[in-house]
């Protein structure tokens, strides 16, 4: 296959995956809706004995919808993976599919879906399906509409084995933190809700949400530490000549790390649970996503100011603390010191 064909295949794969996630989402919504009516009927049942049979039918239908949702999500994830691989094969030379924001988003959403599907094997977490599929569908649409970019070879600075290690770990921890944030958000919503029917009533009780959210964060934090404080600096050292440069991307990766450290700390030492911990987790997720998206679009500061003539993609390459800048620096080269010299 030619590169162009791979590229088309990748786009088709992403679309197919998005459609599958969407159908999965519908299945989950259907499940939620029929749960609500089942719950209502259950209430009526006390008065009218006839309801019992309908409840039974409804629960079976519900269970099928729920299982269908999970199967479709898993299947979508497989297609999603194929699309990712095709994206990498579309580049010449072949490379990892992490050259720009579009590629990052489709990789990050894949990890979110994957973490969800894998978690269902070990944890009772299927009820998170509606949220996860909604999130993934929305993020994929945003990637498609807003972030699409051509398949380009990696600039020299990104061409390093550290790219693979650094990015894999960053994307995995981003996925875990994102699922954690969904759980924390769910916690806060459920804590406020008094409804006895509907989705919020169906998700497990607050204690379980709190603990699951903690587990996601406890998993994500060491991986993030590895990505941001070990592989990032090693790579930055190789490409830029300094392992830590206080570049806005690095600053925000550090802020995210400190906030999540505070989150774990608060839980372990101050005994924060539930609401406070959930809020802190959401602050962490906000810094994480701000770094991923916000910094690329809003940061006018220092590092990129001299790269005005450069196509915007170059400053957007790779939503990471990684040495993106080096690519530009090599082009534009000379910093301020020379101008003063």
């Amino acid at each position, binding site marked *: 296959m030619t590169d162009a064909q791979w590229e088309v295949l990748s786009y088709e794969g992403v679309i197919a995956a998005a459609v599958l996630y969407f159908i999965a989402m519908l299945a989950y919504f259907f499940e939620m809706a029929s749960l609500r009516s089942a719950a209502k009927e259950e209430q009526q049942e006390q008065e009218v004995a006839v309801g019992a049979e309908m409840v039974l039918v409804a629960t079976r239908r519900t269970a099928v919808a729920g299982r269908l949702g999970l199967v479709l999500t898993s299947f979508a994830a497989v297609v999603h993976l194929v699309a990712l691989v095709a994206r990498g094969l579309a580049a010449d030379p072949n490379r990892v599919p992490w050259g720009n924001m579009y590629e990052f988003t489709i990789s990050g959403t894949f990890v979110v879906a994957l973490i969800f599907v894998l978690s269902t094997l070990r944890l009772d977490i299927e009820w998170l399906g509606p949220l996860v599929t909604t999130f993934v569908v929305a993020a994929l649409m945003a990637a498609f509409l807003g972030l699409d970019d051509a398949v380009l070879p990696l600039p020299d600075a990104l061409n390093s084995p550290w790219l693979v290690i650094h990015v894999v770990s960053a994307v995995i921890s981003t996925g875990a933190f994102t699922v954690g944030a969904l759980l924390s958000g769910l916690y806060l919503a459920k804590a406020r809700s008094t409804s006895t029917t509907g989705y919020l009533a169906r998700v497990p009780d607050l204690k379980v949400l709190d603990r699951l959210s903690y587990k996601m964060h406890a998993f994500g934090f*060491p991986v993030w530490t590895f990505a941001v*404080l*070990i592989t990032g600096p090693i790579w930055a050292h190789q490409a830029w000549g300094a*392992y830590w440069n206080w570049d806005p991307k690095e600053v925000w990766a550090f802020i995210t790390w400190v906030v999540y450290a505070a989150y774990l700390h608060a839980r372990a*030492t101050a005994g924060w649970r539930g609401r406070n911990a959930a809020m802190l987790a959401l602050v962490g997720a906000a810094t994480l996503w701000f770094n991923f998206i916000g910094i690329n679009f809003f940061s006018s500061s220092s590092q990129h100011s001299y790269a005005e*003539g450069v196509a915007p993609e170059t400053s957007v390459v790779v939503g990471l603390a990684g040495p993106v800048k080096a690519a530009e620096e090599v082009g*534009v*080269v000379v910093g*301020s010191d020379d*101008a003063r010299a």
Partner: protein
Amino acid sequence: MTDLRTDLQHRPSDDRQATALPPDLTARELARWSWRQLTSMRTALVLLLLLALASIPGSVIPQENIDSLAVSQWRDNHPRLAPVWDRLDLFNVYGSVWFSAIYILLMISLVGCIIPRLFVYARAARARPPRAPRHLTRLPESTSYTTAEDPEVVLARAATALRGKRFRVDAADDSVAAERGHLREAGNLLFHLAVIVVLVGVAVGSLFGYKGGVIMLNGEDYGFSNNLTQYDDFAPGALFDPDVMEPFSFSITDFEVEWLTEGERAGMAREFVAELAYETEPGGETKSYDLRVNHPLSIGGTDVFLIGHGYAPVITIRDGDGEVAYSGPSVFLPTNAQTFESFGVIKAPDASPEQIGLEGTFYPTFAMGRDAEGNLTMPASVFGDAFDPLVSLFVYTGDLGLDDGTPASVYVLDKAKATQVVEDDGQPFRMDLRPGDTVTLPDDLGTVSFDGLQRWNKIQVSRSPGKMVALAGVVLALLGLLGSLFVRPRRMWVRARRQDDGTTLVEVARLDRSSAGDPEDGAAEIAEVVAALQGETPETKTRKTEEDES
């Protein structure tokens, strides 16, 4: 009983809590109290969150040591705010007093917190598991059953079973106490200690290290040797000692760029290789190294990086007397990363009758831009490689400001006292030169020729002594963190007592001391222990009997 309960929940790390200030303090008590506040958990948490908050301004406001050019632009645009920002150290956030204060306080707090915990841990590591609380079944995770077996038999079996599950076991009269998961606290201590190691490594690097940059023309004629005078820019640490600079030297013998010629980013450079000929010490053997992005050259503790490149047109200026007033390559700085359109100046202060200064643009691949109607617009470079190089220069004469002794940038022409050379019609005089061209300046000022093209590389040299310490620190921190997060410390107790009716009441309880104990896991572990006690599975039964016989 409240005592017992707090003791059960107690972790070695829980000692330090912020307390209210007691009345009537002596100075000593006040000091003690302040120390306790500083090393309390709450303070640590507040300081952590403050550190995150304090990092934000530095990502928004340009920073002096990262991009001083942006800082000076910012100052020009905000003349009113700049002094205020200066007073608040906002152009140097990460070296500011207030930022340092936060992390130094955090470190003091950390040390003050860690040292006592180390002692507590040392004691706890040797301690026996705490005795069974009186009311075992009041613990959230507990169960009980009755059996006809003797209490001693049950307890002996409990001890074996718990040992088999790698618990540390201590038997008392009517009960067995067991504990495991000490590694969690060890991991947590390791993590916090390692944070200090990282900081020491980083501090050593920034105090004793240095970072310098130099623009080097390609060719064996241009050499660099590693001493202060050779750098264009140099940023030493506060305690930097020039004696530690490794005495290496190098020149760039060849430089190659691979350009993208097709696709959306055509014209971008993709790969750069600078071939270095270097000697690690004067008179040493000359070696060669292909310096590339991501492939620094390490010499001793110093690393040499390729971080940029550009063009240096070779220009010769002859003055009005026909004397060569200037000849050689001049470094032009790229203003566009993609097309390598570059800006530069050339100064000939010794020209007579008047000093001559040239300023202009270099286009590696020259083309005139065209607007929608096809009219010619601004000239531009369309490609980074030098397919059709052209340098376009304006001329200034008079006082170039070089004689009054104030340092001047070689990249900036001081036009304050110079006059621009103009055509008869008053338009600025401009010359466009291709390699080999010579242009005669008006007013018998002389001639300018474009003899050829040279390339230059921006080389960065840096030495950060503590980097391996810092790296080891983070790796240790990560290991400690894994222990701290995933080892689950827990205690279990089994009590067996003969009841009045002759049967034996067996109580089993468990206490999870980690942050994420699952009730399901706890129930499962209790169930396993109970199963072992009741000898449910055939294997355990036979194993038990064998043990009994032996």
